[in-house]
């Protein structure tokens, strides 16, 4: 999985970090100090479709069939997250109770073309 840089135009992971202090949310979010809201961007040319990481999925099989049969003119491929991580958060709710929760799929780890 590629990480976006100045010279990368194909599908890649763009790192974006938000410090809770910068948005004045540090008073109710105890931990962590910020959030890695990474996202995916970039081009998905035909030869990258279905790669990497999702070769075993049903959709990838359908796409392979379409490509093998030359029916790909109407099909566009998208750059999407293919791996995510959960995030553990500790925060005050409105009753001033501390809540610790592991939020699934919060952080994009890698990107790929559908």
């Amino acid at each position, binding site marked *: 999985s590629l990480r976006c840089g100045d010279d990368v*135009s194909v*599908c890649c992971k763009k790192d*974006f970090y*938000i410090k809770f202090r910068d*948005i004045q*949310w540090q*008073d*109710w979010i*105890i*931990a*962590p*100090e*910020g*959030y*890695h*809201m990474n*996202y*995916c*961007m*970039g*081009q*998905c040319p035909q030869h990258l479709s279905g790669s990497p990481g999702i070769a075993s999925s049903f959709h990838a099989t359908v796409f392979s069939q379409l490509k093998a049969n030359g029916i790909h003119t109407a099909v566009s491929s*998208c*750059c999407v997250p293919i791996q995510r*991580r*959960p*995030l*553990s*958060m*500790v*925060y*005050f*709710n*409105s*009753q*001033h*109770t*501390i*809540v*610790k*929760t*592991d*939020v*699934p799929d*919060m*952080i994009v780890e890698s990107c790929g073309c559908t």
Partner: protein
Amino acid sequence: TSAAATGCPTCGMPAMEKGTEERYLVEIAKQQILSKLHLRERPNITQTVPRAALMTALRKLHAGRVRQDGTLELDNNVPNSRTSNQAYEIVSFADVDERVSAGTDTSLSFQFLQEKGHSVQVLQSSLWLYVRPADAPHHRGRVNAEISLPASSGANRTLLLQRSVDVSRGGWHTFPVTGALQAFLDGGQRRLRLEVHCEDGGRNLCSHEASGDSSHQPFLVAQVQLREDANKHALSKR
């Protein structure tokens, strides 16, 4: 090539100015966090928990698998039930009810508010109490600590549990209250009241007020899981 020139080939949107793009991403992040935490808006924090009390509770709560930035160490071989079943942990600090607390009894109350449309299944819950050391130098070392539900509408108080605790040295003790918390939440109430009795020679050993140390404030830790009310009804029907 033309798509690349517009800046966003995947969605076909025109490129935004740098400042605008950043503000937009921050707004998305805010919405995403609120939505994942099932909150409509950010909680308005009007009173703060003493830092010492907070640090004590977090030390007890914090699992070793959480990194500094909040990401989790995942073991791919073990299914992560905590993340898949919307399980979470809460820490609620006790308000000491001075009107009810008397002599060697301490009355604690905890406030809970459930989300509409959801009920909560309590997987595990414990009351954390700091028991101060006994004064007498040659003390036998143990006292009985009792946790009860207060008397209500003519009925006597209900003893939840009784345990012998070591008071030769001060320390934290946990008292399982899973059943009591579940019954309280199922009853749709908002404030759970517990009475604590642990005295030695007329001295209340569980009163953190007397010690004047906010890091000894009692708290309740619960591991809970959201369950849809619809599912609950279906189960009852069956």
